[in-house]
């Protein structure tokens, strides 16, 4: 028993808190400005030094300086990063570490740990992957461990037992949390807060200069995952994930004409409304599929041509590109319908024709001349297209991620001298040759191909699948897709970049831990990688994307028509059930696992003796019991003395020496029990039963 006077933080509890703080700060450090990370490290070190008594808590002056400093930093942060997630998260982290050094009372611990939970939530704003979830779960466990450590007895400080209790509490809390997660009605956002962060955009962009897509080819990051709901996915060579249409060429860069289809604001949404029926001729059963796309910090999404969005927050531009309503800052999921047999824009407006045939006034004379001659030698536009493709096929063009750099008349240079390039070189020069011959054509950027994941039956599209191809307008056909890269490197289209670029050292060179680099194809590593991705995919589909709609669908599947009453009664029923079960577990059984082993051994010895008619009387003290047994059976005297002294020492004597002997006493007791069994069995053998 101790008398408590202060509310100081116990040392062992402090280590738990510091562990939680460090775990929370670590992932945040990767996203914060470097100097905030530096301050964070400084503060954590300072706190360690305080706990070792090397330095003292900050003085009032220091604290005031810190407050002023933070105010200045806040202002500069907001100026530099804007009011957004990044600046808010950085400031939160800054306040968090400052609070750490002035934490000297038990009360401060709770403020600290509450901030830990809020920082964990911030981590989820950035990343909701399986790995991130496991990490935050660890943080949660350590934070609960810190709470336990603060509140537990000073005589029970072993980290293992604290950890055990923390895990037990978390495990008991988990079922109820899962039920709440599944059943609790999701509420629509109270006010719209666009999440802004300064993460640079990834993936295919709305401009294409030579080398842009080759850059993506170096990355092994995932772009999106696709699952087809009813039909088999199309063949690999037909997997053209159409993104943006680039129809403006300045001699170097292809870019999207923004005026033709602005995006990002709801008022301009009206501009994209057009008469689908008049421009589209779609046949056959559409493919339905779900895409889960990684954050790109861009508004556009990808789908098979010709895609029709079936969700409210997606819309389509004049060129049949699909946009999300807002920048994609988090992994999103969307459903699309695609008509594989289609014709679009059978009648081309003059404005469209002129835009899609315009070229810079000067430059690339050789190519222009080549186009003019070739077009003159064939009868139709289609024949011309085939001739150009044949030109790519028959001449020594190379498909590589590391082409020689081009200067000045880039198209001329590429077509007639270097003849090595990545898809953007082929798409760019192809479109140039078309336009030079007066045929409307444009560049389309997106992804081509995918990797099939057999574990959950879906497709994975990586950044290295990024691709550029062309669409050419032909009389009576509308816009038709042509891919000059296929003429140069058919395996790129048929098998994917993994096959086509297997020997290219630049391929996926940025993907440090890509198993493909270690394991190659068909290896165990590859299978493992697919399996992990399948878990990630399922996690996303079932947990991360669990929203109002999915919840509604689930209820409808399980309980038929969904009413508010039903949902509430289900919530109450399931939640109540979980609480009752946990309550029975905790209160009913009450930590049976922690039963004193010595106690149970003593009871077992008494039981054994009871068989020989020497049971312990109710209310009989251990010493009296020993004396009675020794008197009746002197041969058991020594054994009883050992057992009794061990039992009494462990049960009644409150000191450290008894605790130190605990293990030894248990061992002695166990031996005594065995001896006793042996002796009693011998005894009963020789004694006549009465």
């Amino acid at each position, binding site marked *: 028993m101790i008398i408590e006077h202060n509310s100081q933080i116990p040392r062992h509890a402090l280590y738990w808190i510091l562990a939680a703080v460090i775990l929370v700060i670590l992932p945040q450090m990767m996203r914060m400005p470097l100097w905030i990370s530096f301050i964070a490290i400084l503060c954590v070190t300072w706190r360690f030094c305080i706990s070792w008594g090397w330095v003292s808590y900050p003085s009032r002056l220091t604290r005031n300086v810190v407050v002023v400093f933070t105010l200045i930093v806040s202002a500069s942060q907001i100026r530099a990063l804007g009011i957004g997630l990044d600046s808010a998260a950085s400031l939160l982290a800054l306040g968090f570490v400052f609070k750490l050094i002035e934490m000297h009372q038990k009360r401060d611990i709770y403020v600290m740990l509450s901030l830990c939970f809020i920082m964990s939530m911030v981590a989820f704003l950035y990343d909701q992957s399986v790995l991130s979830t496991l990490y935050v779960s660890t943080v949660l466990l350590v934070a609960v461990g810190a709470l336990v450590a603060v*509140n537990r*007895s*000073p*005589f029970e400080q072993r980290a293992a037992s604290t950890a055990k209790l923390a895990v037990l509490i978390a495990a008991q809390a988990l079922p109820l949390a899962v039920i709440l*997660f599944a059943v*609790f009605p*999701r509420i*629509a956002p109270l006010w719209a807060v666009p999440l802004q962060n300064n993460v640079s955009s990834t993936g295919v962009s709305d401009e294409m200069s030579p080398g842009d897509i080759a850059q993506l080819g170096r990355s092994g990051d995932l772009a999106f995952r696709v699952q087809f709901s009813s039909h088999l996915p199309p063949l690999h060579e037909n997997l053209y994930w159409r993104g943006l249409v680039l129809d403006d060429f300045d001699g170097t860069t292809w870019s999207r004409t923004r005026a033709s289809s602005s995006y990002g604001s709801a008022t301009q949404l009206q501009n994209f409304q057009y008469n689908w029926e008049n421009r589209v001729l779609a046949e056959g059963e559409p493919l339905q599929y779900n895409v889960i796309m990684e954050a790109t910090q861009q508004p556009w999404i990808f789908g098979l041509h010709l895609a029709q969005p079936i969700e409210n927050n997606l819309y389509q531009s004049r060129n049949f590109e699909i946009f999300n309503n807002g920048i994609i800052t*988090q992994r999103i999921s969307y459903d699309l319908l695609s008509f594989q047999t289609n014709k679009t824009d059978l009648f081309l407006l003059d404005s469209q024709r002129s835009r899609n045939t315009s070229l810079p006034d000067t430059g690339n004379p050789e190519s222009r001349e080549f186009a003019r001659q070739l077009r003159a030698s064939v009868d139709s536009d289609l024949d011309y297209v085939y001739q150009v493709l044949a030109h790519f096929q028959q001449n020594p063009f190379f498909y590589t991620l590391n082409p020689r750099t081009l200067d000045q008349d880039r198209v001329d240079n590429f077509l007639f001298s270097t003849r090595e390039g990545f898809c953007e070189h082929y798409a760019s020069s192809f479109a140039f040759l078309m336009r030079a011959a007066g045929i409307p054509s444009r560049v389309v950027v997106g992804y081509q191909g995918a990797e099939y994941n057999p574990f959950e039956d879906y497709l994975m599209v990586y950044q290295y699948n990024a691709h550029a191809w062309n669409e050419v307008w032909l009389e009576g056909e509308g816009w038709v897709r042509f891919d000059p890269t296929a003429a140069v490197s058919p395996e790129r289209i048929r098998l994917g970049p993994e096959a086509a670029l297997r020997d290219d050292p630049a391929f996926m060179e940025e993907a440090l831990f890509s198993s493909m680099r270690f394991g190659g194809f068909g290896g165990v590593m590859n299978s493992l990688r697919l399996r992990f991705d399948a878990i990630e995919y399922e996690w996303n589909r079932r947990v991360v994307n669990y929203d109002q709609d999915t919840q509604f669908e689930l209820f409808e599947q399980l309980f038929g028509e969904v009413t508010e009453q039903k949902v509430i009664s289900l919530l109450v029923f399931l939640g109540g059930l979980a609480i009752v079960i946990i309550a029975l577990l905790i209160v009913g059984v009450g930590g049976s696992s922690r039963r*004193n082993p010595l106690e149970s051994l003593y009871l077992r010895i008494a039981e054994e003796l009871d068989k020989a008619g020497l049971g312990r009387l109710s209310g009989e003290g251990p010493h009296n019991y020993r004396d009675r047994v020794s008197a009746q059976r002197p041969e058991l005297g020594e054994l009883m003395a050992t057992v009794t002294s061990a039992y009494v020492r462990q049960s009644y004597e409150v000191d450290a020496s008894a605790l130190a002997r605990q293990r030894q006493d248990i061992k002695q007791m166990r031996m005594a029990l065995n001896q006793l069994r042996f002796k009693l069995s011998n005894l009963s053998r020789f004694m006549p039963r009465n």
Partner: protein
Amino acid sequence: MLIGVKKLWRTKIQALILERAPVCDEITLRQRNIFILPSRNGLLFLLSAGLIFVAAINYAVSLAFGLAFMMISIFIVAVLHTFNNLNGLVISALPTKPVFQGDEVGFNLQLSRGALRTYESLQLDFPAFATSLERGSAVSTVDLLHRDRDQAQVFWTASRRGVLTAPVLRIQTYFPLGIVRAWTFVRLNMHCLVYPRPTKVVMDKIGAGARECEESADFRVGNQEYYGIREYVEGDSMHRVAWKAVARGQGMKVKQFVDYQDNQTWLDWDLFYGFGVEERLSRLCYCVLELSKRDDPFGLKIPGLEVQPGQGLEHRNRLLKALAMFGGEQG
């Protein structure tokens, strides 16, 4: 408003609860007598869970919902664990050693558990609001981890002489997470005898055969026979000064009287004539303590009670008790 509610809680409701709690020697804590509410830190915990929930709604972050729900679940589990950290606990009163007025009383109690249970970080105290005092007692912390029973002492100041009844005992716990507080009020049958505070008096005239004469009206206490003279010590009565010896120039001497009738010492109420009741009791208490260190038997005469001379610890305690209880059950 919060303060108002708190005040109401402190005064009216708790008083009601306290009155309902019966006085007993042993009590087993059950649902009936365990109260449970979130602690201040628990409110902070719930507030942050709420914040996370709002953020989850606004940013539509599924796992932030999960985090908020997990925190709420942890809170509910903490309620159960904290409740369980009192449930089934057996508290019994143990005898408490008498103390002197003004000293700290360590009320002894025993906490015991069933074989399958453990209890950790139990805080015991006498809260201020259950008494008329400004400050409550210090908090004693007890665990029942490795042993089935343990003793605890909760301290209280013995401000008045007599029988001190222990104030309402509060047992509370924040274990395991500190976000929930479970507590109970127990009125255990715990009493402590409070002796008067001893006040030092010069002892060499008492009990060594010397007789006090003081200003008292009658000298019943063994003062019949003249025994001899001794050196004057400051504080001796002027009545006993051997003036003849002074006249002879032998210096200040004091006459000593011995009671040859029975060689026993009596502590008389009137030994300290002129003092107030409590002051007399304090002085008598000191005398009892001092005399009981010697071998000589001594008795006590106070209004309404006469204890025949005796010896030993038991005798001493009897006398002290008599002093403590003087004036009825006024303690």
